[in-house]
């Protein structure tokens, strides 16, 4: 193990502990400051324009909702209008998140479509994990929120954590993300800057539109292995 590091040192002609680490991990001031940049109203308006433009090109369905009430109604209508890709069961799996609680999907869809929430616990037994896995696979829609929405590419940053599992935005055929407009930031660079100032969870995914491939004759096709359809609801605060 350390043999290879030692060989790398010899190859580079350097010594261990010679103080290079500080320079290697140093960040530029400009980078650190972009985390706290305060956008003007004009910039914010530009962000929405950019998201609309990018979403169109990505085949990312964009919905702008005046409040969570309207958003909940729209999400429920969407769920009713869509059919499952695998099997016939209509079931939704959603992150455990206060914003999604407020959508009231459970009572809006009561009797029609089962809405399940990612379980919260300090630990999960193998059988509980198996059970959760089965439920996610059985769901045709996954609903999440996002920690940040990147204006320049219409990308969602999904940070892992309790109740915010990896599979909900991945395994169901349709991914619906509900994001308050206060979470819009400028760019991927700003995201990285913000993340530098906090500790990162065990996993994070930046999602930009539905899954796609161009592996046959470089022809773009949407719907590869991840969700084949994606909806972004931006909710005014």
């Amino acid at each position, binding site marked *: 193990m350390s043999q*290879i590091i030692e060989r790398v040192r010899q190859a580079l002609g350097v010594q261990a502990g010679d103080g290079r680490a500080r320079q*290697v*991990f140093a960040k530029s001031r400009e980078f650190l400051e972009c985390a706290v940049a305060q956008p003007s109203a004009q910039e914010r308006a530009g962000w929405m324009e950019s998201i609309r433009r990018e979403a169109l090109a990505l085949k990312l369905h964009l919905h702008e909702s005046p409040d969570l009430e309207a958003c909940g109604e729209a999400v429920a209508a969407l769920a009713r209008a869509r059919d499952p890709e695998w099997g016939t069961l209509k079931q939704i799996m959603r992150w455990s998140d206060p914003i999604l609680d407020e959508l009231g999907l459970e009572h809006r869809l009561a009797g029609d479509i089962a809405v399940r929430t990612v379980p919260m616990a300090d630990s999960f037994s193998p059988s509980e994990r198996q059970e959760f896995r089965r439920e996610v696979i059985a769901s045709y829609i996954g609903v999440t929120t996002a920690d940040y929405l990147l204006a320049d590419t219409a990308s969602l940053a999904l940070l892992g954590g309790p109740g915010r599992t990896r599979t909900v935005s991945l395994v169901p055929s349709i991914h619906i993300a509900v994001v308050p407009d206060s979470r819009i930031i400028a760019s991927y660079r700003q995201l990285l800057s913000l993340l530098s100032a906090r500790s990162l969870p065990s996993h994070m995914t930046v999602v930009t539109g539905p899954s*796609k491939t161009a592996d046959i004759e470089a022809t773009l096709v949407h*719907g590869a292995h991840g969700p084949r359809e994606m909806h972004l609801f931006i909710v005014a605060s």
Partner: protein
Amino acid sequence: MEQNPLKYKELAAKAVQDKQLHKALGKMRDKVGRNAVKLYKELPTGAGSREAAKEVRRKIVDNLDVVLETLIESIRARGGHVHLAETDADAVEYCLAVAKRFEVRRVVKGKSMLSEEIRLNDALEAAGIETVETDLGEYIVQLKGEAPSHIIAPAIHYTREQVGELFAEKLGVPYTSDPPTLTAMARKALREKMLTADMGISGGNTACAETGHVTIVSNEGNIRMTSTMPRVHIVLLGIEKVAATLEDHDILLRMLTRAAAGQKISTYVSYVGGPRLDAEPDGPEEFHLVLVDNGRSRILADPDFREVLHCVRCGGCLNVCPVYMSIGGHSYGSPYCGPIGAVFTPLTRGINTCHHLCQGETLCGACKEVCPVDNDLPRMLSLLRSKLADGDRRWNVKPHSRIEKLIFGAWSVVMSHRGLYDALTALARAGQRLLPRRNGWIRHLPGPLGGWTRGRDFPPLAAKSFAQRWARRSTARRGE
């Protein structure tokens, strides 16, 4: 898949006749290759983006020991396992050991050129483990029993009709040549595999040392499946492919996706930092990062070639290379084809063994201009050729051709002695009358020079050389 770089000439000769191949590759050139440089300029760093990315890569590679140590520490702190593999065999053995411990019967793989380099699939299959490639392009070449022909678009050499026939034969589905339908068929077939595999193996695009994450980009979502659904996830990463900070990721990933696919950002950029936590009901139980040397530290030690380790494996140089466009990826006989392969493969598999690769490129410079980290591949190709010409102890290179070396030695003597040069050209002028002609051009040169005229004619020496005519003209003028 047995690949042999010594078959270069044979395979290339076949490929240059393959119009279908050229049509397929032309799409990559037109859709991605020609747009890359334009896309770089859209970044805030503008026209200097390539240089900015190069600086970041240089910083990392020049301090690789520090970056690796920090990465290893951070990943372990997150509960992940790290293994440093000195050789391909070492890396394979480690993966097999993990598979054995988990009693793995099926592996799903995300695209990894490094896994091709260490020939992992063959080893897994030999151990009785079903190994399924999940990237659509990789899946196609695997069904066909072939190796990938492009670093990021492995099945680019196939037409939609050929893919349709392949799926009809192997998957028992009705024939179609419609890419969306074919993609949906693969989606269905592979979903089953991805949801039931015990182990996921993927490559990585980079890693973040300070936070302890491996960074993986994909458009299809197959790599997210591979890293999330099975009980154990192994990432294979070359020791040089790491990054120090999140700030490094900014320019590197933006350049990577532009160069590789003409995209501002991939559909998914995943930061994978170890196994699932107790409070997470999904994710792998174990996470392993295998950092593979396999000849890279040797390259690192040579300042003339260290630059090739800056490569981010975007495949951008393939899409603009006139040689790759003519001969396709398989001719190179190595997982890494195109200009980058022509430098990297000889350095890792032997310069003599892979001499065709660096000798086959044209040194036109297109690869350097498109490279997102401004890698000077033409310089390194020339250097490899000079080592082949003269031999080199450090790299264990034998002079490729003693006769060639002798001829050029003699040529250099002739060129530096006027009298000798004139005498020899006079001799050649007399001798060329005996050679067969076509439209005034020489059709065949004698002896070893015959290779030159195999596919083209040679212009004969003029009756009088320029020097002779010039001398006569000046004499005539003086006489006026």
